[in-house]
């Protein structure tokens, strides 16, 4: 499927794109538009105003995607805590990684077009996933 989101990708959209491709739709293709009125009927919009896969209540888009797809994987929820704090900064979760990742993403979006941000951050989220998976299995921080 084609998935459409707002241009100017930041952490919630980059993490959501990674999540979609890895856990929801392996054939996902992404495009970037100005606003919800620029989404055509054949695409699924995400992280935009007034769409199903956006912010709902206290949830950022990444968390909404997890909930609506019944993804209960605790590793993904650990990443969700980081995305939530980087995006909303409301202190709901203890995610000290958020501040660093937030700056990395903001900087990347200054020097790369959206497609490239998505491609570059995909292995970053792969790495975070592996790290927190090991951390959960070991019950301690992996070396």
């Amino acid at each position, binding site marked *: 499927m084609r998935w459409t989101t*707002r241009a*100017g990708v*930041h952490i919630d959209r980059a993490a959501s794109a990674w999540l979609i491709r890895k856990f929801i739709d392996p054939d996902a293709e992404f495009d970037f538009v100005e606003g919800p009125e620029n989404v055509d009927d054949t695409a699924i919009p995400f992280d935009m*105003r*007034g769409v199903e896969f*956006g*912010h*709902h*209540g*206290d949830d950022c888009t990444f968390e909404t995607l997890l909930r609506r797809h019944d993804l209960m994987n605790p590793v993904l929820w650990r990443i969700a805590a980081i995305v939530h704090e980087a995006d909303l*900064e*409301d202190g709901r979760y203890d995610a000290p990684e958020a*501040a660093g990742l937030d700056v990395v993403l903001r900087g990347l979006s200054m020097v790369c077009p959206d497609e490239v941000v998505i491609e570059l951050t995909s292995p970053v989220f792969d790495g975070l996933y592996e790290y927190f998976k090991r951390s959960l299995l070991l019950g301690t921080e992996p070396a």
Partner: protein
Amino acid sequence: MLLIYQVPREPSTPRIAIWRRLRRLGVASLADGLVALPEDARTREQLEWVADEVEAAGGSSILWRAQTLSVSDERRVAGRMAVARAEEYERIIGAAQAALAGEISDQARHLRRLRRELREVRRRDFFPPKERQGAQAAVEALADSAHAYADAKAAR
């Protein structure tokens, strides 16, 4: 940007959640249900989500890109935002000085909290008042003291 919004009085939980979110963003409150924020990619996105939250709470909202007719009015709004941040920085300075004068073994704990608060205030500080540097310096002084104590303890 201006956000004009109206949320039903009851239930109060979503109304309060919306107000807390706006406060965290550092908006200037111009009137009941009317707030202003300088536009950038981040603030725009955040205000859009608040606008959605207002609708989800059964309220109504409109986001505007607005311009005052006179420069002095614009300065007044910016000035009010700077005063609000200055008060927050003053509180941080007071707390850092109190911690510095207090129990030395508690300083590391106070330092962690104040650093977080300082980061949050800086995030919503669009027109930095002079108190910003003072707050930064007060927290750094606390950090120096807390680290000197930790070093001394480790050397014992």
